[in-house]
């Protein structure tokens, strides 16, 4: 588990740190305060400095333009935005560091001129105009570092075989990221394949029962070989199966949370806007599920929310089970300071009773 995290010149932050991280960490704050950027930093860090990990957040944020030329998809990632003030020049650097029990992993990305610049420039005039910088990334799992060519504008061009990219996130990885857009059903189906008929299956059904107590079974049809997956639910006392989608957004969100959590076993689960699609009355049980699964599967969870109800649910939970005091922290992310303000679960409970707004 990470205990501390610090960011230097990463996205909106020049210097920013978080301390006393716990098993469950919830980031709150105003719009554009940088909550999602903190999740992205943890994602990059936990992938150890592999170059592909740098492209995940630009993909999700739409900082990419792509063009399909069968069978290849050309994508241009605008990686300027990973750097503070959206500006790159020779020497621009961002760093992400953390402390764990016995280690201090760090990712460093630096913009530099290619060593053989003249030669490169000549080449670039012919086939790759504008390619005059390189991005050098190092990390605990990439100690020698990787060099990636980029343009002086910060554009990183990449080719993919069509259809290959979505499943990249199915490779074993240290961190799983559930964004606000939710999970793709094709991905969920692939992940479900690893869960079905294990003891985790029953727990996921229980999670769905938070919203719909009648849920009995879950199955997917369709899938990779066909156009798209469909998730089906069997309700108690109901003859017919029903599509998951017919039960509303909340249950799909819970299914995504539960499957991603199972996937994150022993690693890190990142959830942007954890309460998305969930009615306030279900949030306490959602937290109970997340904390239970995090402890049981040894997952460190980082999540964001805007919702006062989501915080309130956490406060109620702490009132019932004071053990959460040592498991749960809430951080107010706010770029006007250099350190995130940390509240323990007990302090969140006090804030709720005393009408103290912790979200800024």
């Amino acid at each position, binding site marked *: 588990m990470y205990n501390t995290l610090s960011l230097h010149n990463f996205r909106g932050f020049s210097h920013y740190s978080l301390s006393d991280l716990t098993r469950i960490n919830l980031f709150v704050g105003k719009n554009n305060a940088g909550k999602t950027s903190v999740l992205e930093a943890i994602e990059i860090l936990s992938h150890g400095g592999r170059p592909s990990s740098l492209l995940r957040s630009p993909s999700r944020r739409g900082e990419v333009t792509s063009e399909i030329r069968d069978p290849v998809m050309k994508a241009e990632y605008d990686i300027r935005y990973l750097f503070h003030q959206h500006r790159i020049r020779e020497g621009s650097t961002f760093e992400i560091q953390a402390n764990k029990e016995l280690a201090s992993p760090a990712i460093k990305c630096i913009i530099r001129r290619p060593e053989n610049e003249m030669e490169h420039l000549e080449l670039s005039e012919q086939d790759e105009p504008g390619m005059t910088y390189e991005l050098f990334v190092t990390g605990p799992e990439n100690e020698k570092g990787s060099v990636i060519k980029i343009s002086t504008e910060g554009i990183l061009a990449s080719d993919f075989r069509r259809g290959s990219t979505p499943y990249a996130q199915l490779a074993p990885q240290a961190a799983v990221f559930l964004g606000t857009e939710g999970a793709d059903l094709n991905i969920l189906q692939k992940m479900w394949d690893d869960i079905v008929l294990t003891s985790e299956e029953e727990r996921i059904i229980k999670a769905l029962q938070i919203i719909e107590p009648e849920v009995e079974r879950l199955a997917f049809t369709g899938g990779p070989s066909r156009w798209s997956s469909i998730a089906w639910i069997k309700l108690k006392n109901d003859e017919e199966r029903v599509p998951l989608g017919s039960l509303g957004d909340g249950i799909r969100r819970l299914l995504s949370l539960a499957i991603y959590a199972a996937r994150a076993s022993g690693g890190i689960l990142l959830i942007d806007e954890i309460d998305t699609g969930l009615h306030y009355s279900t949030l306490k049980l959602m937290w109970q599920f997340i904390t239970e699964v995090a402890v049981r599967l040894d997952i460190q969870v980082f999540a964001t929310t805007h919702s006062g109800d989501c915080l309130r649910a956490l406060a109620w939970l702490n009132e019932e089970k004071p053990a959460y005091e040592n498991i749960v922290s809430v951080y*107010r992310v706010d770029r006007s300071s250099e350190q995130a*303000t*940390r*509240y323990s679960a007990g*302090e*969140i409970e*006090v*804030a709720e*009773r*005393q*009408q*103290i*707004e*912790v979200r800024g």
Partner: protein
Amino acid sequence: MAYPKENCARRLIVEGIDDKFSIINLMMRHGWAWDVSNDFIPFVKDAGGVNEAIESLPTAIKSFSRIGIVVDADMNCTTRWDQIKAKAIGYFPKFPESPDLAGTILTSGEKRLGIWLMPNNVDSGKLEDFLATLVPKTDQCWSWADTATKGAVSRGAQFSQGDFIKAHIHTWLAWGREPGLPFGTAITAATFLHDSDIAITFVGWMNALFAQ
């Protein structure tokens, strides 16, 4: 007039509803328009007890720019001071050994913390001891209310000795032009004075903490 909302960046934490409206009405008599349009005016939160008030300090300090706490010293001013110190010293490292008689104000970076122990930052006592200083000196019913309250004790009145001043002051208020006014209203109605020495010191502390 609209009171500031709970998300306002300045907060005064008090024990209960009597403290809240005594302070609001006293400050209004000293010229504070208790209105959201005045950006220095704090939200006053009655915490629901002295322990709740003190327990909320760390969360409040993390969340607001200026924080005031007004609690009763009760039996022992030093004990109360040490309880507050234990909660706040992590955020205000230069925490003094004892309260400032003029009301304590501590600063750390952009944050400001004010502490007032009722009645006067040195004696044991409570809000009602502070309000007793606002009873007009010429009022003949005040000493009669004292005698009557003592008489009630000798006849088996149930309140504890620590609450004697509370019983005394409510007895006195029972005989006002409008019997039984709550403290805040009695301050506004000028049943109470507004300018005892200690009240003026308190107002100075409030101004220094929030208005300057």
